[in-house]
């Protein structure tokens, strides 16, 4: 796993004011190393490995390569626990993105990445460049990006700047993705006060490519030319990777210049130029310049290839005058790529990039020295062993401490009775839940995203539990001749992870799989973004380790390996961490997209069935408890993989058989909210009774493997459920102008719809579109 990550401890933060105007003959000593974020141990390691004091540029290179963001030094020892293999995995963690075989000569390439820190400082550019970065990871592998999703976390509407952050992030994602012509087909947005000081922006991209033509990053072949293509290099984003490895304090305006500025138009040209070039036999290896720019791409390509690279910074296309080697090496200017090409192909590469009005320059060559060498003309400014920068980078098994979770588990309050009248009646509770920003419609968000470009979106945002696209042909063009498709979802209930990291992370993976099942997809593999606080705090580190264990177990149980991912640590402000949020992006295969159901009830007279066991739902960590008790309390549900498997098999078979009109899993808000969502999205009522023990937990509890379906083949679905040993309950029929649940609620559809559609806009006072 690599790419956009995070850097060192607060105590050992680079002092950016001091490293602002570096010169190459500046004095390099322990103090300079500390300003660059190195610890004393790390500094000593540098000295003993090199047997000399590094140059200023070398110190810059080492500091970014050893940053948390690039080196994963706090998480590396634990990330190995993820299962990463399966017969369909063509590329697991370690390259720019993971790749799985999806049949018909096609492969799907996908990854998710965080851009949390920059987005909090400058939401529009931060989110935009996050989207740009993840798309670059995908087309670096040779795949054409065909779908974007995103997972966002914001604080309370009343928190400072929160509306500005929400509007900026959404506009930034929209502008970049829309301009690239890559549809944003799904995502999730949740709100919690623990994101007041650190929002999360996790961007997922999936691309499709011929399975026979995957491009990788290892630089090999001594003497082969190394080419720089794309935008010119400027002074923007220097030490962006380090910023992403810090906590925030009160005066973070000063960090704004470290946020990169995105130019989706240039990236669109870069995409087309790269894919055009990749059709020819010219590119041997390629790596995008993301975090830590030219430094990390050079070092990683050399390390992957077990080779060396020598470059001359004076050959790098520059858009500012007088840039030092240090600045050129550490710039995070966007929309750039580094590639090793076949000798003799240089002119052809230049021709294609010139056609697209982009720069292309030979800046060096591959060597077999095992060293990264940087020259400024005749003068050598960096000579470092590749191994020291990548494989031998520090890694820490940081101490962990389990907090007293029992205390919050046992604090689950006694909520007022279900049959109460007035404000705590089931109906009143349902209406209040539907207006909660986390549950309410996200239409205001996703209508700003182009979700229909590429004419492949079968199930777009808000339509179903997962997004569904039809597969393109091998040239990555829209393909009306196939029924095969891919389903994607991004998911994680961080409230559960907070209350019980292992169990919560497991439940999150399980829910992602359930979402895919709801659209008729077989879960195949996943990518993740592990968003946590400061790993030097043993309790934060403990939650990270536990979450990885929980996710790993779920991945093994579901046979969905982790093929790529990203870690974002130090999501803290003034010592307060975010909810631990190990976001999952899961991908599944759909054999027939024409049968992929949405969540909306379709037809008057369809039977409504509940598959799975509603008694498995619990109030611990639920939206209802948060709403009524004002906190995250109780223990999340205990996962039951056996029940989940039976449920998944039943629903997949029922969808394949064409029995299912709609399918929707019960998530935030529980079963009653899920029912209401199927009603409002279908703009048709339902008349239901609940043939099981009705309690607050079965109505509003969360964490159970249950799926609500509507069908005109009720008997067949019941038979299937019995065959697979999946509990099934007949709830009633679709129809009418109201949602009627026997003895619990009777609300007109338009009232439910108004409350749900307006919730987010009202909470944030957003303008109407």
């Amino acid at each position, binding site marked *: 796993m690599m790419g956009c990550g995070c850097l060192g401890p607060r105590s050992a933060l680079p002092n950016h004011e001091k490293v602002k105007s570096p010169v190459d003959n500046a004095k390099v000593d322990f103090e300079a190393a500390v300003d660059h974020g190195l610890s004393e141990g790390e500094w000593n390691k540098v000295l003993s490995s090199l047997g000399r004091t590094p140059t200023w540029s070398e110190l810059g290179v080492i500091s970014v390569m050893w940053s948390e963001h690039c080196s994963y030094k706090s998480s590396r020892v634990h990330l190995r626990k993820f299962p990463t293999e399966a017969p369909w995995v063509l590329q697991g963690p370690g390259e720019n993105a993971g790749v799985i075989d999806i049949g018909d000569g096609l492969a799907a390439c996908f990854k998710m990445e965080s851009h949390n820190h920059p987005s909090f400082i400058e939401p529009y550019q931060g989110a935009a460049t996050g989207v740009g970065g993840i798309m670059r990871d995908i087309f670096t592998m040779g795949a054409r990006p065909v779908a974007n999703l995103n997972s966002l976390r914001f604080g309370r509407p009343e928190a400072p700047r929160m509306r500005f952050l929400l509007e900026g992030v959404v506009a930034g994602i929209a502008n970049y993705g829309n*301009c690239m012509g890559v549809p944003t087909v799904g995502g999730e947005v949740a709100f919690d006060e623990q994101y007041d000081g650190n929002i999360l922006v996790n961007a997922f991209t999936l691309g499709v490519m011929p399975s026979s033509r995957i491009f990788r990053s290892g630089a090999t072949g001594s003497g082969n030319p190394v080419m720089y293509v794309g935008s010119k290099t400027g002074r923007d984003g220097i030490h962006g990777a380090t910023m992403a490895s810090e906590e925030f304090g009160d005066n973070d305006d000063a960090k704004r210049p470290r946020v990169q500025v995105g130019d989706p138009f240039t990236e669109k040209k870069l995409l087309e130029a790269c894919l055009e070039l990749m059709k020819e036999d010219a590119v041997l290896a390629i790596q995008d310049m993301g975090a830590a720019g030219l430094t990390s791409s050079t070092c990683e390509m050399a390390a992957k290839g077990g080779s060396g690279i020598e470059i001359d910074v004076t050959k790098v296309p520059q858009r500012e005058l007088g840039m030092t080697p240090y600045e050129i090496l550490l710039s995070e200017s966007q929309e750039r790529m580094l590639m090793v090409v076949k000798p003799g192909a240089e002119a052809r590469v230049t021709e294609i990039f010139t056609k697209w009005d982009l720069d292309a320059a030979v800046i060096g060559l591959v060597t077999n020295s095992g060293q990264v060498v940087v020259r400024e003309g005749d003068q050598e400014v960096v000579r470092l062993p590749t191994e020291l920068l990548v494989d031998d980078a520090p890694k820490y098994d940081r101490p962990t401490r389990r907090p007293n979770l029992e205390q919050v588990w046992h604090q689950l309050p006694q909520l007022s009775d279900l049959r109460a009248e007035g404000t705590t009646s089931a109906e009143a509770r349902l209406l209040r839940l539907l207006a909660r920003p986390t549950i309410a419609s996200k239409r205001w968000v996703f*209508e700003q*995203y182009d979700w*229909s*470009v590429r004419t492949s979106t079968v199930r777009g945002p808000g339509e179903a539990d997962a997004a569904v696209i039809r597969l393109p042909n091998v040239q990555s063009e829209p393909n*009306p001749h196939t029924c095969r498709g891919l389903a994607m979802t991004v998911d994680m209930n961080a409230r559960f992870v907070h209350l019980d990291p292992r169990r919560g992370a497991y439940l999150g993976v399980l829910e992602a799989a359930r979402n895919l099942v709801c659209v008729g997809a077989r879960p195949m593999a996943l990518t993740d973004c592990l968003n946590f606080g400061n790993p030097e705090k043993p309790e934060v580190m403990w939650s990270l380790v536990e979450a990885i264990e929980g996710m790993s177990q779920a991945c093994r149980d579901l046979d969905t390996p982790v093929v790529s991912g990203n870690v974002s640590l130090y999501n803290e402000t003034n010592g307060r961490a975010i909810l631990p949020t190990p976001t999952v992006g899961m991908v599944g295969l759909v054999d027939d*997209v024409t049968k992929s159901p949405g969540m909306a009830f379709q037809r008057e007279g369809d039977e409504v069935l509940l598959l799975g066991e509603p008694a498995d739902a619990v109030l611990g960590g639920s939206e209802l408890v948060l709403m009524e008790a004002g906190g995250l309390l109780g223990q999340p549900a205990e996962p039951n993989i056996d029940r989940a498997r039976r449920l998944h098999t039943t629903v997949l078979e029922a969808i394949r058989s064409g029995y299912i009109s709609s399918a929707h899993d019960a998530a935030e808000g529980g079963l009653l909210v899920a029912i209401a969502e199927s009603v409002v999205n279908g703009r048709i009522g339902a008349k239901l009774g609940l043939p099981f023990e009705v309690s607050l937990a079965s109505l509003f509890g969360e964490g159970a493997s249950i799926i609500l379906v509507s069908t005109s083949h009720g008997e067949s679905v019941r038979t299937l459920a019995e065959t697979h040993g999946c509990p099934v309950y007949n709830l009633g029929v679709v129809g009418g102008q109201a949602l009627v649940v026997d003895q619990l609620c009777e609300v007109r559809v338009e009232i439910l719809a108004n409350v749900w559609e307006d919730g987010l806009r009202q909470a944030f006072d957003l303008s109407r579109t």
Partner: protein
Amino acid sequence: MKVAVITFPGSNCDSDAISVMRVMLGLDTKAVWHKEARLPDQVRLVIIPGGFSYGDALRSGAIARFSPIMADIKRFADAGGLVIGICNGFQILLESGLLPGAMLQNASQKFVCRMVQVEAVSNTTPFTSDYQRHEWLRIPVAHHEGRYHADEETYRQLQRDDRIAFRYGCRDNPNGSLGDVAGIVNAQRNVLGMMPHPERAVESLLGSDDGLRLFRSAVRFAKSREG
């Protein structure tokens, strides 16, 4: 006959348009790079697709109008050739003077992508003859600068000459355009500009196939003139 789909740097609906013409309608469809000086021979229909030509720098379409191919498209249109500009393509046609009026930012100041109700106002154009007059269609929009505007005299003339091809439903106007205008034709009726994306409405699986008849109608017209 051949169809040409123009690609500018930043075009991103070109492959969708090509897919409709080539794969769904089985036509010989050429992707034409904007730096070409001439359209290929035997082209009878030109599609200027949507996207963000030149990153929408300055104004949408303001730079694309200077691309070499635009001079030949103008010549082609003056000779009666059929031209469809969709979304950014519409903006480019306005900027190049092939259609009257101008485009403003959406009233919401935000990008909007959703399925909208569109009324086929005039069916006396080569593009809309397969629609009933006042037929309601479902076609998606996806744009940030789609608020059509024209001076009073131009708008009156468009109305008088039945040149308003499409309007949004008055309660479903996604951008606040003048008179709910969604698409117009030139005086000779052979150049159509529209903000909604008919090429994204060609299969009910993807939400609607109401846009397909627009292309069928244009192709039939072009073929009939070919003799």
